[in-house]
């Protein structure tokens, strides 16, 4: 499953909930304000770091650039553009958008 999250980890608990309820081998895509979760030293950094053992974590590069965070991404997080976003949706059997 592809888990798509768009809320800041320091404003909502969507990132935390998705990481808790994603099964091993699932894919997580951080977009919009959720991209802050992929940056070094953010409030969810430790949880993302731990989750990377079981989950593949992606972040949408244009959303990182729009927020001035493109050069602060944690090691192990992969960046995708909009075409890569479409590929993830197409590759995964199902997806869930966390609100």
């Amino acid at each position, binding site marked *: 499953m592809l888990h798509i999250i768009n809320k800041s980890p320091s404003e909502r608990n969507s990132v935390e909930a998705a990481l808790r309820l994603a099964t091993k081998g699932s894919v997580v895509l951080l977009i919009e304000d959720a991209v*802050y979760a992929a940056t070094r030293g*953010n409030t969810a950094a430790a949880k993302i770091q731990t989750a990377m053992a079981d989950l593949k974590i992606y972040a949408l590069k244009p959303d990182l650039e729009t*927020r001035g965070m493109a050069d602060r991404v944690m090691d192990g997080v992969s960046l995708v553009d909009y075409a890569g976003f479409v590929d993830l949706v197409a590759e995964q059997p199902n997806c869930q958008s966390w609100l």
Partner: protein
Amino acid sequence: MSDDMDMEDGGTIKKFMFVNRKAPYGTIYALEALEVVLISAAFEQDVSMAFVDDGVYQLMKGINSEGTELKNFSKTYRALDGYDIEKLYVEQESLEARGLTEDDLLVDVTVMSAAELAATMAEQDVVISH
């Protein structure tokens, strides 16, 4: 009309603080706050802006919104001192919680501890939150 409103006649200057707690771009709050602050400059009041929680992300350097085609309004923060809005307060705790330092911000700010910011907030006549 009350005396407070009669600014042409040397009326009361009040202390206004605009508190920003939202990340930019994900919602409209940051841009709307800037609009309101710029309007407030026309009334020649004692205006300050506080950046707390995700609001500190509004002041990030290096914003490039070409990919998302969103309006990049970070230059507006640089223009604030042209409107005599020079009191920009940033909470130290909020920066630290996000792995940021003052060097990551695109304008000169006053970094304050939560206690200092609390005291400054408490002495305002009007606080408007975005």
